[in-house]
C-alpha cells in the first residue's frame, strides 16, 4: 500500500498547533534512541535532561535566567519573520548589546547613581539597534540579502567581542585572563529573589512580548507587517511602504536583542568574557517557529529551549555526556518541526490506483 501527499483545500488550523507538539514527541523519541545507543537507560536519561533541572526553586529561577534573553531575541525575530525579513543576526545584535553595555558599565564602575543602570540598558539596546541598522541599510539600499549580511555581521560581532576582552576592555588586574573587571553593584540589574541569579530582565522580556502581541494584532502598522510578509504585491497594491517596514522590524528586533545582551552581562554574568553568547540568538530562531510566530507560543517555546540548555549541563554533570547534546536536541526540534509543518498544507492519503491508469 502506497501513501502520497495531497494538498489540502485550505490550511489545517489544527495541524498548525499540533505540529510543534508532534515535533517535541519525535525529538523525545529520537533522544531516547540516542541515549540508548550511548548505553544509558533512555527514560532515566530523558528524565535527567528534561525534568531534573526543574526539581527546585533554583532550577526554576535558572530557567528564568535563560528564558529572559531567549524571549527578548525571539520576540524581535518574530516581528522580522512576520515580514519575511530573515534576520539571522540576533546573535550578533545580542553580542553588540553586551559589548556596548559592558563598555559603558566599565566606565561607570565608580558612579553610584540611579541613572546608571537605565543608561547602560539603553546604550546596550542602542548598540544592538545600530548593528541591525547595518543590515537594514544594506538591504534597503543595495538589496543585499539579509540572511547573508546578518550572518556575516554575527562573526564580526563575535570577533569584536574577542578583541575587546583580549585588549581594551581586559581587566588590568585579571592575571591576563580574557575577561573584563567585574561590574559594580550600581551597574548590575537588581535580582528578583535574594540569593538567586534571576534579574528583572525577565519582566522586560514578558513586557516586550505583551507589547509586540498588541502591536501585531491591534495596530495598522502590525497589520502592514503581516501583509508584507504574506504577500509582497498585495502590500505594494495597498500602498504599504516596504522599506519603512523593513527598517522598523530590523531596528526593533536589533534593539531587543541588544537589550538581551546587555541584561545578560549586567546581570547573571556580571562582566565581559568570550562566552557571553551561548547561541541564544540562533536558538531564538527555532523558538519563533516552534512558537508558531505567536507571542504566547513563543513564551512556551522559550521555556523549552531554555530547558535544553539546562538539560545539557545536567547530563554532563550526572551522566558524563557532552554538553553539546543541547545543540543536538535543538537541531532535532527544528528538523522535526519543519518536517511536520508540511502537514499543515498537505495531508497523507492512500494512493489509489485508477482503473485506466497504468504504468505512466
Amino acid at each position, binding site marked *: 500500500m502506497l501513501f502520497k501527499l495531497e494538498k489540502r483545500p485550505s490550511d489545517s488550523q489544527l495541524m498548525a498547533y499540533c505540529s510543534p507538539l508532534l515535533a517535541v514527541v519525535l525529538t523525545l523519541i529520537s533522544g531516547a534512541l540516542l541515549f540508548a545507543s550511548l548505553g544509558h537507560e533512555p527514560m532515566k536519561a530523558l528524565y535527567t535532561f528534561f525534568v531534573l533541572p526543574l526539581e527546585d526553586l533554583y532550577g526554576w529561577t535558572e530557567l528564568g535566567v535563560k528564558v529572559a534573553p531567549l524571549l527578548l531575541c525571539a520576540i524581535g525575530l518574530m516581528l522580522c519573520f512576520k515580514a519575511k525579513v530573515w534576520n539571522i543576526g540576533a546573535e550578533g545584535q545580542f553580542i553588540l548589546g553586551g559589548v556596548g553595555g559592558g563598555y559603558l558599565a566599565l566606565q561607570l564602575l565608580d558612579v553610584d547613581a540611579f541613572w546608571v543602570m537605565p543608561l547602560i540598558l539603553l546604550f546596550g539596546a542602542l548598540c544592538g539597534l545600530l548593528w541591525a541598522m547595518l543590515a537594514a541599510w544594506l538591504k534597503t539600499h543595495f538589496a543585499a540579502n539579509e540572511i547573508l549580511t546578518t550572518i556575516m555581521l554575527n562573526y564580526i560581532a563575535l570577533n569584536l567581542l574577542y578583541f575587546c576582552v583580549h585588549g581594551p576592555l581586559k581587566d588590568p588586574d585579571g592575571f591576563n585572563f580574557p575577561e573584563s573587571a567585574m561590574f559594580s553593584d550600581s551597574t548590575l540589574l537588581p535580582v528578583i529573589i535574594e540569593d538567586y541569579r534571576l534579574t528583572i530582565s525577565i519582566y522586560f522580556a514578558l513586557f516586550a512580548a505583551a507589547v509586540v502581541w498588541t502591536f501585531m494584532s491591534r495596530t495598522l502598522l502590525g497589520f502592514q507587517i503581516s501583509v508584507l510578509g504574506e504577500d509582497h504585491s498585495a502590500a505594494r497594491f495597498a*500602498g504599504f511602504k516596504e522599506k519603512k517596514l523593513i527598517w522598523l522590524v530590523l531596528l526593533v528586533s536589533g534593539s531587543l536583542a541588544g537589550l538581551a545582551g546587555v541584561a545578560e552581562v549586567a546581570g547573571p554574568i556580571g562582566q565581559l568574557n568570550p562566552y557571553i553568547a551561548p547561541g541564544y540568538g540562533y536558538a531564538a530562531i527555532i523558538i519563533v517557529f516552534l512558537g508558531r510566530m505567536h507571542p504566547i507560543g513563543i513564551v512556551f517555546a522559550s521555556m523549552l529551549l531554555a530547558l535544553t540548555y539546562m538539560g545539557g549541563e545536567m547530563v554532563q554533570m550526572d551522566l558524563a555526556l557532552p554538553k553539546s547534546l543541547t545543540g543536538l536536541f535543538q537541531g532535532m526540534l527544528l528538523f522535526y518541526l519543519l518536517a511536520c509543518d508540511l502537514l499543515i498544507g498537505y495531508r497523507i492519503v492512500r494512493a489509489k490506483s485508477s482503473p485506466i491508469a497504468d504504468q505512466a
Partner: protein
Amino acid sequence: MKRIELTNITKRYPGAIANSAVGISVDAGEIHALLGENGAGKSTLMKIIYGVVKPDEGEMYWEGERVQVRGASHARELGIGMVFQHFSLFETLTVTENIALSLPKSDVVSMESLKQRIEEVSTRYGMKLDPNRYVHTLSIGEQQRVEIVRCLLQDVKLLILDEPTSVLTPQEVDTLFKTLRKLASEGCSILFISHKLDEVRALCDNATILRGGKVSGDCVPRETTTDEIARLMVGNDTPLSEEYKKALGQEVFLRIKALSFQSDDPFSTTLKDISLQVKSGEIMGVAGVAGNGQEELLNLISGEEVCDASAVTFAGEAVGNLGPRQRRELGLGFVPEERLGRGAVPDMSLANNALLTAYHGDLVDSGWINSHKVKSFAAQIIEQFKVKAAGIDAQAKSLSGGNLQKYIIGREIIQAPKLLVCSHPTWGVDIGAAILIRHALIALRDQGAAILVVSEDIDELYSISDRICAICDGELSPVDEMKNVSINQLGKWMAGDFSPLTNQAVGV
C-alpha cells in the same frame, strides 16, 4: 466510425467532482465545440483526452479502438494535437527552432527542410509565418500560429484548441476560423473549447455543453439560439444578460497627459505619449490584447509606479508622484487583474483582506484597528455582493475566482471611490457573478464615479462602456463614444492601426 469517443468519464478531485459520467464523440472532419463556464470541467476533460490527467472511471475510443493515453507524447503519436491557452514557446529561439524542439528526432532531417515544411504548411492554411523570426518578436496571434503549425506538421487527426480566441483581435479570429474550416474540410477533427457563443455558432458543427462537471446538453449550434445555449451553460436560475443605458460623463476626473514611461523591467512595454481623460459618471473602456502596456498604464494610475507629478491628475490635483495610499485618500479604488496575490492576500482571512485597502476610513483610528468595524465591513461586502464564503474568517484562497472577485470589487465599491479602475473585472468569472459585477459598476457610475475598465473581453466592453479606446504596443488609439465605434474599427485599433474611421461622418 467516430474519430474519438469518450464514454462515462468521471474524474474526482479532493472536494470536487470535475467530470461526472461525461460522454462526447467527434466525427472525422467535424468541428465540435465544448462549451461551459469556468469550472464546468472543460479543461479536465481535455487533459484526459491528451493523457495529462487520468480519469477515475470511463473509457476512451480512438478510431474505434479502446485506448489508454499514457501521456502527451503518446497522444501526439495517436495524432492528437493540442494548443493550450498559454503557449509553451521559447521566446529566445526562432520559430523553426521551437518547432524542431517539439518534433520527434526522426522527423527533423535538417533545419532547412523543416523551414520549407513550415512555410508550406503555413501558406497552405493561410497562416502567414516567417520561420526565421524570433518568437519574442511575434504577436500573440502569430505565436498561436506557431503552436498550430507545430501540431499540423505531425499529421494531426484531432486538434484541440483551448479558448483560442481569447487572445486575438476580431480580425485575427476571422483568419483563424478560415484555417480551421480548411483543416476540417480535409478530414481533421477539431475540438474547440470556448465560452463565446457567437463564435461557436459561427464555426462549429456540433456542441457539447458542460455544467458543473456533467453534460447538460448537446446541440447543433447553427440551429440553436444563443439564449438556449447560454441557458444550458448557466442553468435556470441566472439571468442571461442585461442591457445598460449609456451615459455621458460630467467633469473630467482622471486626466493623463502626454505620459511616456519606460520601467526598469526589460520585459515591460514602453508607454508612448498616452493621453486619456475619464469623466465622472462615465465608464471608459480600454480594449487591447494583454501585454500591450495595460499593466504599465494601470500601475501608473494606481501609484504602484510613479512618474512626473503633472502627468496624472485626479480632479485637477497632480498625483503622478504619489503612492497608492495618498491616491486612495483622494478617491481612487482599484481592482487589479491578479486577485490572489495582489488584490487579496491568499492566506489571510476575508476580514483582514477587507482591511487591506479600506484602512484609511474609520476602520482604523489613529493607528489602532477597530476589529469590530472591520468585521462588520467584511460582513457587509459578503452580504451586499452575494459572496459565497464560509464566513469572514475564511481564507481568501478558499474562495472560487468569481466569489473572490465579487469580494474584491465589493470592497472597493463600498468605499465609494470617485475613480474606480478595474482590470479584467469578469475574467474567469461565471456568468451570474459577471452580471452582478457589471451591474455594480453601472450603479457606481450612476452615482457619479469615474470608471476605467481595461479588458480583453470585447463583448463586455461593448455592453458597459460609454466611451472606448484601445491600447496597442504602448500607444493609445483615439477615444470615441461607444456607439460610434464598430467592431471592425475597434479591431483595427487593437492591432495598432489608428487611422481615422472611414465612416466618421456618422459620429460626433
